[in-house]
């Protein structure tokens, strides 16, 4: 028992190693946040292209979504780190954000597309019959209604990304997984650091899921005016 307490002390207290976990969690959340923002921008753009009348735009977004969803996230991260961004010196968290943003963009594109398609076609017809352009109809009529279906799925994507960013350990030690590895390097103890980050991931994801559920229920209530 004493031995186990010692291992915990070695993992967190000695040398102030708990700082590594705090900073690791910070980077995990930072990468996730930027990836979601970038993913949303790419996702909305790709979804609109996918639904556009232009064959070329449809093809471009189709290929993008297909390729990104058809290859492993880790391979994408490695290609961006060691091939595309290799010539310039960029901090690892930015590389991670870009890689996961590009990856997430493909999934968010499908979420957004589904949300837009879920709005009754009569809404578009009503808008267009009043003389509104397709862009005006999309902005003022379709998107506000599509958001109701998009937001819950987007929250889910956020949670998935938190877990997925653990892969960033392939290129650097900055995130939560990196913190556990740094401790291992000093103590040769695998059990405690790995169990610790598992608990940290679980708690963070639980809290965020609960918050998202709250938000969703709030939205549903507002809907029942």
């Amino acid at each position, binding site marked *: 028992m004493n031995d186990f307490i010692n291992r915990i002390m070695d993992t967190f207290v000695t040398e102030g190693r708990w700082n590594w976990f705090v900073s690791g969690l910070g980077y995990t959340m930072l990468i996730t946040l930027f990836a979601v923002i970038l993913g949303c921008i790419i996702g909305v753009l790709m979804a609109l292209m996918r639904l556009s009348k232009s064959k070329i735009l449809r093809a471009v977004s189709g290929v993008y979504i297909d390729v990104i969803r058809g290859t492993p996230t880790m391979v994408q991260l490695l290609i961006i780190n060691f091939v595309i961004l290799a010539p310039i010196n960029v901090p690892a968290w930015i590389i991670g954000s870009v890689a996961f943003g590009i990856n997430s963009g493909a999934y968010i594109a499908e979420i957004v597309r589904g949300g837009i398609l879920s709005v009754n076609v009569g809404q578009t017809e009503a808008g267009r*019959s009043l003389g509104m352009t397709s862009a005006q109809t999309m902005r003022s009529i379709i998107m506000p209604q599509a958001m109701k279906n998009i937001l819950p799925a987007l929250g889910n994507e956020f949670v998935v990304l938190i877990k997925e960013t653990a892969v960033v350990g392939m290129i650097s030690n900055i995130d939560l997984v990196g913190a556990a590895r740094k401790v291992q390097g000093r103590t040769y103890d695998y059990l405690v650091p790995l169990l610790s980050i598992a608990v940290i991931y679980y708690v963070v994801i639980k809290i965020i899921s609960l918050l998202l559920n709250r938000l969703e229920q709030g939205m549903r209530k507002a809907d029942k005016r």
Partner: protein
Amino acid sequence: MIKVTGLKKSFGDLEVLKGIDEHIEKGEKVVVIGPSGSGKSTFLRCLNLLEIPTEGEILIEGECITDPKTNVNKIREKMGMVFQQFNLFPHLSVKDNITLAPMKVKKIPKEEAETRAVELLEMVGLADKADSYPAQLSGGQQQRIAIARALAMDPDIMLFDEPTSALDPEMVGEVLQVMKNLADAGMTMVVVTHEMGFAREVGSRVLFMDGGYILEQGTPEEVFSDPKNDRTKEFLSKIL
């Protein structure tokens, strides 16, 4: 005002309109009747290009709308449309439903658009519902709002696509009354409907469509009391 020549429309292999020639004058109230699948809704939806005709020419106030170079949005401003399923915007209040297009398309200032909305709501008898949301209203009320919304763009022509078909029977009357008032005020109207009473009372001309053609037309008196075409006779005998 509306001149249709050789209008054809196919959906894939299915030819729904097989050649329509029709001339509608200003102030006319044209009622289109016929069995389901006869193409009457498609004909109406071609008039404001919600369906793109496969062949033929449509002139609205002298402008050829089937010409790809025509600005479709400008044409649609002149033509209000009322749908079977109302298609009100559920995320907007009644007032915002009515003011949205005038503000976005015609750039009318908010106050002016709202004043007009209140007038229109009074006209359809729903002045107290300005701040309600569509889901709080009955079908008949929603359809009257939809009419007000279309009128807010000050259209020259109003198109009605089975405006009472989705309503409970007791609500049909209030919608038809609003349409009748509109007709009395001189609006040019094209109405696809199964309400033969309305066709008789309000219509200045009745078109009978079946199989993608206009088979017979005339005043309500002529078509209802003395139909010439066998198909018209058969249809009317079933529903009257």
